[in-house]
């Protein structure tokens, strides 16, 4: 499994990548889950959400992805009537935001290690705690700054359709 593209979070005025997928809980709790097209080994879930914290509340403010029928997914695909902003009240847990330079690259999920991890703890979509864990110092000054995925295999929609036909 390739390292996965993170969800985007606008946090304290910066856009960062996070190694958590709060929308998974929505789907697990019975929320409507459209069929996303899998087009890339670095994006098994088939979508990327953009999140924002306003007044300690977690909001989903954007969703990009492609559906099985070829149409583009938006926020309204999942949350009808809410095209701009969705309060993530279903989310209780801890978001992990890697910071600093990469110490170790792991070619799987969100396994890579960075100099720091910022953990934001939420209860019912409301921020209740924040802590930072120091993981060490990257020995190589050329190593990657901030979370990212180095490479991936991208499938064309045609290739995907052919796979589905088999």
């Amino acid at each position, binding site marked *: 499994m390739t390292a996965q593209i993170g969800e985007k979070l606008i946090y304290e005025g910066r856009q960062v990548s996070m190694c958590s997928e709060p929308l998974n809980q929505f789907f697990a*709790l019975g929320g409507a889950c459209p069929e996303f097209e899998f087009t890339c080994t670095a994006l098994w879930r088939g979508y990327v959400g953009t999140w924002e914290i306003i007044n300690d509340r977690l909001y989903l403010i954007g969703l990009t992805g492609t559906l099985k029928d070829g149409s583009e997914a938006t926020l309204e695909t999942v949350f009808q009537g809410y095209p701009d902003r969705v309060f993530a009240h279903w989310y209780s847990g801890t978001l992990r935001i890697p910071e600093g330079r990469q110490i170790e690259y792991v070619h799987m999920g969100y396994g890579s290690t960075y100099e720091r991890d910022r953990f934001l703890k939420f209860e019912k979509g409301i921020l209740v705690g924040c802590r930072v864990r120091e993981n060490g110092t990257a020995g190589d000054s*050329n190593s990657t700054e901030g979370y990212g995925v*180095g490479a991936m295999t991208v499938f064309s929609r045609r290739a995907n359709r052919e796979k589905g036909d088999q």
Partner: protein
Amino acid sequence: MTYLYWYLGIGVSVLVIIFTVHQLTKSKQEQEIADLIAAFDPNREQWWWKPLNNFVMPGLAAAAVVAGWPVALYWKAKEMIEARQPPRTEPPQKKFEVAREHLQRQWTIAEVEAAEVVLDPLSAVPKAPFGHLNPAWEVFKQSIAEGDQLWGFSTVWEAEWRQNELREGYVIMRGDTIGPYFIARLTIISE
């Protein structure tokens, strides 16, 4: 000394055989995965990476096979035998169930719906029980029949990848039988 020459000679033969077998049996997919992993190595831009990866490491591996060929032979034989055996099947994932000891207290539908209304100052949620999860609640509510009791539950469940989750919600009790449930909150406990 003759024994040493014999030992090293056998080692070289073993190296040639293992290399040939590997070349004949490796799949294209394995090579692609290896290439992809190599492409991700953050050190690949360093001047020493190519000579180390392409010459030094294979050279050391070859020397290790020649020097310790009985071990290399054992591992290669083990690998080939294991490859022929049917793949091990993972035990089926346990299905989540609510047990009697998870029950907390009895609720009425009206109490639940009053307690679970979600409010948001930016109006980014329906003003309804369970907010964006209201459609799922409405489906669950249809399972509640005359005479059923509604109970709240809370339990820690070990989900996939040994991830512990606090699962809280409501379950239908039919007499002494535990019926359908609705998970209202799912909190991942371990980071």
